[in-house]
C-alpha cells in the first residue's frame, strides 16, 4: 500500500460493466503484473462516475487523467505509455463535442458530475410535510413491494447482497444485522432508528429527517418486516426541534394512509413507530447506551455480548440502524442489490453523505460514491481552501477519527482505507484545516469533547481522557518536556486498548494521528526556545522566520 504511486480506477458501474469494463480491469491487472508494476500501481474497481455515456471509464490518479470508451485492448497502451513512459494516451482522452479539443482533466469537463444522491435524493426536491409528494416520486412503493411480493428472507438477502454497511460509523453490514435479529426467537422485537447525531460538525441525518422524513419511516417498516418486529423507535436529539416536528407530521400522515399501523397494505404485517428524545449525550450514539437511554436511564453502554440483536430494548431482540443507512433502503429494494453494489469499492458499496466544513469554500453536504478520493471531495466539489491558504489536513470520523494529510488525499475513500490511514469513516463529518491551524490545539479540542462526553462507566474512559486532556493542555501551554510526549503516547494507546465501548476506544485517535503526522508541532512546543510559547502562539514550521 505504502509504495503505491499510482491508482488506476476502472468504473464498474452498471453502465460501464455493460461495455466490458470488467475485461479492461482484468487486462490492466495482467499487464501491470507482467511489466513488474504490480506493486507500484493499484488497480481499483470503482462505482459509477456518472458519465456512463462515454463508458468504460478509466481514471489515473494522482495525474487526474480521464480516459473514455476504453476497450479491453487499450489496457496495454495505458500501462506501457502512461504508467511506464508517462505519456498520456491521446486517442482515449475525452473530446469536447463543440471545440474538437481533447480534455484531459475531469474538472475541465463542463457537465461532469461527481455527486450522486441516493440517501439525499428527495432532499430539497419535495415538501417534507406533504406525503403525497413523497408518494408521487415513488415513495412507499418499496414497502409495498417488500411486504406483498417478497419474503422476509428475500428482503434480507437483497440488503445483504447490496453490500450496504452501517452509515453511523461502525460499518457493520446491515443485511447481516437484520439476519441475526430475525433469527432470534421472540414474540417481541424492536426496530430502532439512531438519530442521535452527536458528532460535532456532522448534520447529514438532520438534513435527511428534515428534508425527507418518510424515507426513514418507510425503511424502518421494511426492516421491521424483515426482522419480525412490530414496534419501532426513533431516538432523536432534543436539539433538533425542526426534525422532530417534521417527523411527527410524517408519522401522522403515514398512519392516516395506513402506511403505518395495523395490516399495512392489507397484509397481516403491522408496525408503528414512537419517538424518544435524547438529552444531549454523545455516548448515546453507541447502540447499547442508546437503548439504555430509550429506557429512561443514564445512557451508559453495556458490555457486548450480548448484542442488542439478542438482548436489546427491555431485553427483547432489537435492531439499531442509523438514519442514513435507512435512507438507502427504499432505493435498494426498488432498484435491486446489483444496482447498489455497482457503486463504490470492493468492500464499501454505494454512496456516502459527507458534511464538509471548516476551512473550505463550499461548506455543505455532498453525497458521493465510495471510492472517490479526498482530493476530489475537497478541491473539486468543495472548491478548495479559502483565501488561497494551503491545505494542511482533514479530520474524518469526528472525535473518533484522525487527521489525513496531503499524502493521503489520493486514497480512494472507503471504510477500510480510512482505518488503514489511522482515521475512520465515522458518521461523515469532514473538517478541513489549513496552514494556520495548530494540530496540538485540534487534538486538545477533541479530547476536551470526549472528556466531557465520557460517560464515567469505565476507568480508562473516565480518568484516561481527563489525563490526556491535561497533558495536551500542558504541552500547548509550553510547559511540557519530551518525557511528557512519551507519556502522552503511551497513555493514548492504553486508553485505546482498555476502554469499555467504542467512544473511548477511539477517543485517543486524534492524539495518535496528530502525533504521527505532526510530531514536529508537538516537539516545537516543547523545545523551540526562539519563540514565545503558549497556547495559540505556535508558529507553523514553514513560517518560521517570517512575521505572521
Amino acid at each position: 500500500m505504502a509504495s503505491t504511486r499510482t491508482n488506476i480506477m476502472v468504473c464498474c458501474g452498471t453502465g460501464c460493466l455493460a461495455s466490458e469494463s470488467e475485461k479492461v480491469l482484468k487486462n490492466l491487472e495482467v499487464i501491470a503484473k507482467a511489466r513488474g508494476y504490480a506493486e507500484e500501481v493499484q488497480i481499483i474497481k470503482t462505482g459509477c462516475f456518472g458519465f456512463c455515456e462515454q463508458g468504460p471509464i478509466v481514471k489515473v490518479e494522482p495525474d487526474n487523467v480521464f480516459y473514455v470508451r476504453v476497450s479491453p485492448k487499450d489496457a496495454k497502451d495505458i500501462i506501457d505509455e502512461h504508467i511506464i513512459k508517462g505519456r498520456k494516451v491521446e486517442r482515449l482522452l475525452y473530446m469536447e463535442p463543440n471545440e474538437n479539443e481533447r480534455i484531459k482533466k475531469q474538472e475541465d469537463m463542463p457537465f461532469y458530475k461527481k455527486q450522486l444522491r441516493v440517501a439525499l435524493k428527495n432532499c430539497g426536491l419535495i415538501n417534507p410535510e406533504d406525503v403525497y409528494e413523497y408518494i408521487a416520486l415513488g415513495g412507499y412503493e418499496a414497502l409495498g413491494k417488500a411486504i406483498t411480493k417478497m419474503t422476509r428472507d428475500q428482503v434480507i438477502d437483497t440488503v445483504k447482497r447490496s453490500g450496504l454497511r452501517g452509515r453511523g460509523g461502525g460499518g457493520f453490514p446491515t443485511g447481516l444485522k437484520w439476519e441475526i435479529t430475525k433469527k432470534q426467537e421472540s414474540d417481541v422485537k424492536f426496530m430502532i432508528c439512531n438519530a442521535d447525531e452527536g458528532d460535532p460538525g456532522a448534520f447529514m441525518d438532520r438534513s435527511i429527517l428534515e428534508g425527507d422524513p418518510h424515507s426513514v419511516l418507510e425503511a424502518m417498516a421494511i426492516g421491521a418486516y424483515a426482522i419480525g418486529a412490530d414496534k419501532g423507535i426513533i431516538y432523536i436529539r432534543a436539539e433538533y426541534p425542526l426534525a422532530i416536528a417534521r417527523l411527527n407530521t410524517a408519522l401522522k400522515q403515514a398512519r392516516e394512509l395506513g402506511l403505518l399501523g395495523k395490516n399495512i397494505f392489507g397484509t397481516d404485517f403491522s408496525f408503528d413507530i414512537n419517538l424518544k428524545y435524547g438529552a444531549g449525550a454523545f455516548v448515546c450514539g453507541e447502540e447499547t447506551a442508546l437503548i439504555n437511554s430509550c429506557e429512561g436511564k443514564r445512557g451508559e453502554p453495556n458490555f457486548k455480548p450480548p448484542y442488542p440483536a439478542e438482548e436489546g430494548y427491555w431485553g427483547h431482540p432489537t435492531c439499531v440502524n442509523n438514519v442514513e443507512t435507512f435512507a438507502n433502503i427504499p432505493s435498494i429494494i426498488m432498484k435491486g442489490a446489483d444496482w447498489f453494489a455497482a457503486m463504490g469499492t470492493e468492500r464499501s458499496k454505494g454512496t456516502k453523505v459527507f458534511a464538509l466544513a471548516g476551512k473550505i469554500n463550499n461548506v455543505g453536504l455532498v453525497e458521493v460514491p465510495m471510492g472517490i478520493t479526498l482530493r476530489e471531495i475537497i478541491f473539486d466539489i468543495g472548491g478548495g481552501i479559502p483565501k488561497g491558504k494551503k491545505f494542511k489536513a482533514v479530520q474524518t470520523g469526528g472525535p473518533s477519527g484522525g487527521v489525513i494529510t496531503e499524502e493521503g488525499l489520493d486514497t480512494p475513500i472507503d471504510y477500510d482505507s480510512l482505518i488503514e490511514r489511522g482515521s475512520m469513516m465515522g458518521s461523515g463529518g469532514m473538517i478541513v484545516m489549513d496552514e494556520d491551524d495548530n494540530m496540538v490545539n485540534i487534538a486538545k479540542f477533541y479530547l476536551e469533547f470526549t472528556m466531557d462526553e465520557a460517560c464515567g462507566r469505565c476507568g480508562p474512559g473516565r480518568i484516561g481522557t481527563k489525563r490526556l486532556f491535561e497533558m495536551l493542555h500542558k504541552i500547548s501551554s509550553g510547559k511540557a518536556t519530551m518525557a511528557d510526549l512519551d507519556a502522552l503516547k503511551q497513555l493514548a494507546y492504553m486508553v485505546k486498548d482498555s476502554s469499555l465501548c467504542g467512544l473511548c476506544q477511539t477517543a485517543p485517535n486524534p492524539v495518535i494521528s496528530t502525533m504521527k503526522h505532526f510530531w514536529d508541532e508537538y516537539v516545537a512546543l516543547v523545545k523551540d526556545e526562539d519563540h514565545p510559547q503558549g497556547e495559540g502562539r505556535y508558529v507553523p514550521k514553514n513560517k518560521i522566520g517570517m512575521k505572521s
Partner: protein
Amino acid sequence: MKIKSLDELRKIREEHSNQVRLREYGEMAGDKIEILIGMATCGISSGARETLNAFVNALSSEDIDNIKVVPVGCIGYCHSEPTVQVNIPGQKPVLYGNVKENKVRDIIEKHIKGGKPIENLILHVDFERA
C-alpha cells in the same frame, strides 16, 4: 383513507405525479410556476423564513396566483443559503443561492415576469439524483 394494496398506492402516485413532475425535468405540467425554498435548520438560520415571507407577500400583493411556493428540505449548499429554486413549466429549473429577502423582488420582476434568470445568483447543480 387507508391504502390497502400496492395498486392503490400506484393510483395515488399517478394522481399526484403532476405535482412533482415539473421539479425534476422542467416538464410542462399545467401553468403553475413553482418556487422551492430550502427550509431546513441551516436555511432558516440564514434567513429562509424571511425570504419565504417576502415571496408570499410580494405575490399576494400583486395578485399573482399561478405561482406555488413550496418549502423543501436542505439541498446541501450551506455555503449559499438561503437557496431558492424556480421552476417554470417548459424550462430547465434554475437554482439560486444567497437569496436574502432583498433579492426576492428582483427574482419576481426579472426572472418570473421578465423571463430572464439572474445570472450572478445562479448556483451550478453538481449532482445527480438516483
